[in-house]
């Protein structure tokens, strides 16, 4: 075991140690001690991941470490081992790097909270689970991490559990994620049935096996009455896994929990619900990309769901007034764009957006947190405004983040989004698959235009113009302490610089990032990859259009909200049609209500009916009878045990007689 693997082994366990220290000794450590331990654990894990990253980047080979044989039962053999390859090293750096910054930020943000050690113990536990998820060398370990991050997310959303609404948000996240996890677990079992292994390496190696290929591609009837639908096994597996991804990465139809998850402390939203956990669905699809590309229908579904989510969530972000809700819908939308890329085979494009998004979205959330902190908990954009001079550092960094996410060159978001849009439009521009490409391309571009608009709306409403809140609150607003502005600054720098890692060939760049990931993700469809090289002209054209769209969206937002702040209301007043559309968007398309009508209420009604008929009438009766019997026997046993030595002696003798009688008569007769 060399130095890099030793470091790799240490990384997750440092966070675990932090969790244990804070969880067990929290009361002793106190506020400052708890925060110090939590931050130190995160930073230490980042420092330990540097040698690992250096090793991976210099050799291009994966760093592995086998810790122990975890499960060894007959057919099922699972190692507890970590694998840091070209894909996971990026996640490792995001999780530990951004994670450390957010830990540091939290130390300032949560300084006044009553239960700092509990907060940091959850946060460290989250880091540990997330690292298991990305570093595990098999799907089972990933699943453990997957459930672990879900648990931590639930605990942190409901961190202020005294507030019933926040506790409800926590439960909602938990239940929605259970649905996704069910799909994920189903996919895992199916994979084990086919491959007899959970190892990524074994799975990938065995994909070439003709036997296994045949099994994967074999089709089966879905068994839906009257409809003759056939599906290949691999299609079913990947769809089940994708269901898991929609849960964790907040895609249609399971996105509903993420906006509510903003009930948690803001740094948590930044770390878990923007930068890391929600991208684990994308990580999982990239990890198993070779399996996914065997099922083109699944890929189309992923692209479609991603594109639809991107536009849908962006529309909802337009009409939100809660600063965190805007960012939450923006996250859902950006995740949609990532899935759009994955679905069109742009695994490295999607993953690159994960990378850049981690920086600017964490930055935006932390900036929003800084604003909320300064305004003592105010989250409504309508009561902000004019904070530019009060919070100069926050404003400057937020501006960078906004420009980056809007896709304005040369900030990070431009490069990552450009790659995605090219993937989406590719079918149309190369004439390979015109209809498909046109739909996905339009969805992608429309979503980017909306992104630029709602982000500049947020920035303008919060920082520019005249203050709309109470004068008192405004005058109390003060810049946050260094523990909060330092992470903002670092993230802002990254948001500017990260894009240059993947300057496309069309701009005479070298597309480092794509080249880096190329050995570990699938190249699909092969024509598309080749096409990119020969369509530089089209790509540059697309870039220009995208840039114009980004500027247009941003400028439009600035113009409306600075010069004509009354315009939206006027338009809505004048045209009742548009007003109705606005209302629909503002109320989030009534999706929550629809879920309530379509899913929650029928389930409750069915549950009630079942409860009355099955539970109360049948099962309860059975259970009551069983309980009665148990009680009678229990009572009899208790009576027997009357405490008198004489009784015990009688039973002793009776037992002895029975024992000896058994031997004499039963065995003697035989």
């Amino acid at each position, binding site marked *: 075991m060399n130095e890099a693997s030793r470091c790799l082994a240490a990384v997750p366990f440092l966070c675990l140690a932090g969790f244990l220290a804070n969880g*067990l000794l929290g009361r002793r450590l106190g506020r400052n001690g708890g925060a110090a331990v939590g931050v130190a654990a995160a930073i230490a894990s980042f420092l330990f991941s540097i040698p690992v990253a250096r090793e991976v980047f210099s050799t291009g080979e994966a760093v592995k470490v086998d810790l*122990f*044989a*975890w*499960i*060894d039962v007959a057919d099922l053999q699972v190692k*507890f081992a970590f694998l840091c390859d070209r894909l996971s090293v990026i996640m490792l750096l995001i999780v530990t790097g951004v994670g450390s910054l957010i830990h540091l930020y939290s130390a300032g943000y949560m300084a006044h909270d*009553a239960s700092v050690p509990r907060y940091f113990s959850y946060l460290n536990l989250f880091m540990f689970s997330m690292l298991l998820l990305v570093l595990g060398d098999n799907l089972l370990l990933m699943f453990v991490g997957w459930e672990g991050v879900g648990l931590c997310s639930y605990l942190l959303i409901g961190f202020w559990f005294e507030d019933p609404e926040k506790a409800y948000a926590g439960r909602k996240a938990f239940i929605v994620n259970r649905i996704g996890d069910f799909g994920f677990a189903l996919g895992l079992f199916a994979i084990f049935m086919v491959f007899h292994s959970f190892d990524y390496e074994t799975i990938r190696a065995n994909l070439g096996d003709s036997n296994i290929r045949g099994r994967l591609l074999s089709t089966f009837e879905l068994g839906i009455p009257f409809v003759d639908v056939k599906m290949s096994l691999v299609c079913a597996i990947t769809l089940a896994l994708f269901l898991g991804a929609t849960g964790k990465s907040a895609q249609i139809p399971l996105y509903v929990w993420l906006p509510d998850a903003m009930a948690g402390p803001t740094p948590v939203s930044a770390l878990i619900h923007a930068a890391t956990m929600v991208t684990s669905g994308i990580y999982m699809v990239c990890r198993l990309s070779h399996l996914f590309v065997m099922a083109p229908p699944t890929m189309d579904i992923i692209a479609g769901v991603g594109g639809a989510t991107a536009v849908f969530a962006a529309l909802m972000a337009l009409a939100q007034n809660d600063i965190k809700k805007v960012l939450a819908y923006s996250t859902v939308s950006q995740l949609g764009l990532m899935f759009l890329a994955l679905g069109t085979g742009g695994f490295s494009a999607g993953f690159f957006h994960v990378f850049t998004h981690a920086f600017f979205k964490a930055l935006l959330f932390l900036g929003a947190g800084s604003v909320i902190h300064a305004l003592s908990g105010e989250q409504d954009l309508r009561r902000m405004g004019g904070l530019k001079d009060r919070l100069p550092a926050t404003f400057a960094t937020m501006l960078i983040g906004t420009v980056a996410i809007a896709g304005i060159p040369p900030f990070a978001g431009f490069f990552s989004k450009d790659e995605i849009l090219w993937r989406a439009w590719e079918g149309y521009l190369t004439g390979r698959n015109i209809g498909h490409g046109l739909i996905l391309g339009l969805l992608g571009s429309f979503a980017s235009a909306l992104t630029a608009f709602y982000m500049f709306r947020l920035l303008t409403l919060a920082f520019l113009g005249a203050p709309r809140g109470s004068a008192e609150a405004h005058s109390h607003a003060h810049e946050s302490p260094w523990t909060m502005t330092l992470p903002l600054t670092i993230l802002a720098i990254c948001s500017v610089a990260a894009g240059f890692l993947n300057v496309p060939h069309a701009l005479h760049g070298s597309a480092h990032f794509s080249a880096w990931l190329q050995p570990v993700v699938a190249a699909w469809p092969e024509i598309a990859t080749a096409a990119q090289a020969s369509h530089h002209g089209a790509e540059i054209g697309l870039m220009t259009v995208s840039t114009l769209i980004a500027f247009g969206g941003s400028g439009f937002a600035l113009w409306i909200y600075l010069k004509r702040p009354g315009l939206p209301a006027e338009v809505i007043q004048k045209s009742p049609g548009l007003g109705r559309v606005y209302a629909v968007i503002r109320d989030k398309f009534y999706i929550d209500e629809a879920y309530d009508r379509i899913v929650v209420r029928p389930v409750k009604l069915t549950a009630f009916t079942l409860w009355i008929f099955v539970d109360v009438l049948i099962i309860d009766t059975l259970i009551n009878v069983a309980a009665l019997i*148990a*009680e009678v*026997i*229990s*009572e009899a*046993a*208790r009576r*027997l*045990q009357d*405490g008198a*030595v004489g*009784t*015990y*002696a009688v*039973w*002793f003798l*009776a*037992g*002895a007689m*029975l*024992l*000896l009688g*058994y*031997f*004499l008569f*039963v*065995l*003697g007769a*035989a």
Partner: protein
Amino acid sequence: MQLGVVENLSFLTPEILLTVTLGAVIALDIGGPKDRKGLVARLAATGLGATLLMVILTYFELETKQRARVFLFADSFVVDPFSMFFKLVAGVCSFMIALFAAKVRRIESQGEGEFYTLLLVTTLGIFLMAGVTDLVGMVVAIETLSIPSYILAGFYKRDRGSSEASLKYVLYGATASGSMLFGLAFLYGLSGTTSFQGISAAIASGRADVLSISLMLGLVLIGLGFKISAAPFHMWTPDVYEGSPTAVTAYLSTASKAGGFAILIRLFYSILARPEVASRPEGQWIPIGDPGWTTLVAVIAVVTMTIGNLAAYKQTNVKRLLAYSSIAHAGYILLGFVVMHGSGLMAMLFYIATYVFMNLGAFLCVIAVSEAGGGEEISDFRGLGWRAPFLGFCMAAFLFSLTGLPPLAGFVGKVYLFAALVEHGWVWLSVVAALNSAVSLYYYVRVVKTMYLEGIPRRAGDVVPLRIGSHFGIMLFVCLVPTILFGIYWQPLARLATWSVGASAPVEARPVAAHK
């Protein structure tokens, strides 16, 4: 394996160290300074810790020297991985008990010198029980455990409950060992020898009649059934466990039981069974003569666990509830006994090792609560989850582990037991056992419910914290770690148990040596 006497004795280091500690404790208690508060406790704990270390070292020595077993004292005592496993378990129990008894005020005021002397003697008794292969040695070992236990049960001299416990214990125990001795005398008479392997050889050569031997083993089963509190010889258990000092109860329900199981396995498996392939004790075993006794033990197991679980149903005292629970667990552990396969024995060992931690932990919680001023009734545990969060969490973990819920050690132990049963055709038995665990959920959860869902503080300020002190906190943590760890990563323990069963037949006999 013929070795020099001195070299052989090196395998007895744990027992020797234990005896030396015992002498030192007595000497210190009699001749030590008057003002020696806690000194005896520290000495005893140190001695037990060192003994534990020696047990581990001897364990390693057996492994590194590839030595399956070492016979001592004219073949009446054996040092093999099987016995070392039980010594390890019992040593851990005694060590833990010694550590946490040190902070029990009442033991201190009653004379800790006596307490630790008796504790060390019982530990020595269990160590002997683990390794003995001779009827005489067996009786001596069992009584070395029993007699001090009677005194320990009545250690609170002025306490009515404690005296009652010790009276019931001694009368029941003496009767049981009398019956056992009667059976042992006949075993000797029927086979003409007192060594386990000799009796087995006598059956094999047809000198002794299997039926008569079985009948007398039935009498022996009474004595051992008493020790492990198997039905119908369990009736002393709830009363004694409730009345004894809780530290003693914890000891009786873990270490003492483990010793009983050790000798039960060795006695029955070496006399009434042999491995199918002589060199593979981890495989199938064949009963000698009629296999009917396995059915008998199966019935005993079922009755034991059912009575234990059902009687626990309506208990209101936590100690008494845990007493019934420990009866039920004796039933679960006996399941591995009937399988007649190495996997069953391995499951027993695994279960005993995990059971020891969770049960010890649960009793430790009871001690910690009553030392902090709480009581032993379930109602005294109201709102404990809020008043003492760590203790509440630990207690919940121990109880859930006793129920057998994943991801805790008790779950893995049950899986091994049930898997061994199903694999060898005892499906009905595993179904009954699974039903029993389902029943047990009810009364375990009742305690957890009382701790968390009753007496919930309305506001944060309403919580009246129950301070248990760092000493108990650390000890709880020590029990908690294996309870959780073996539920997630149980491979090392499973390997240890497998090796302990498989390295040498615990049991299988060496041919009878000719006496010179």
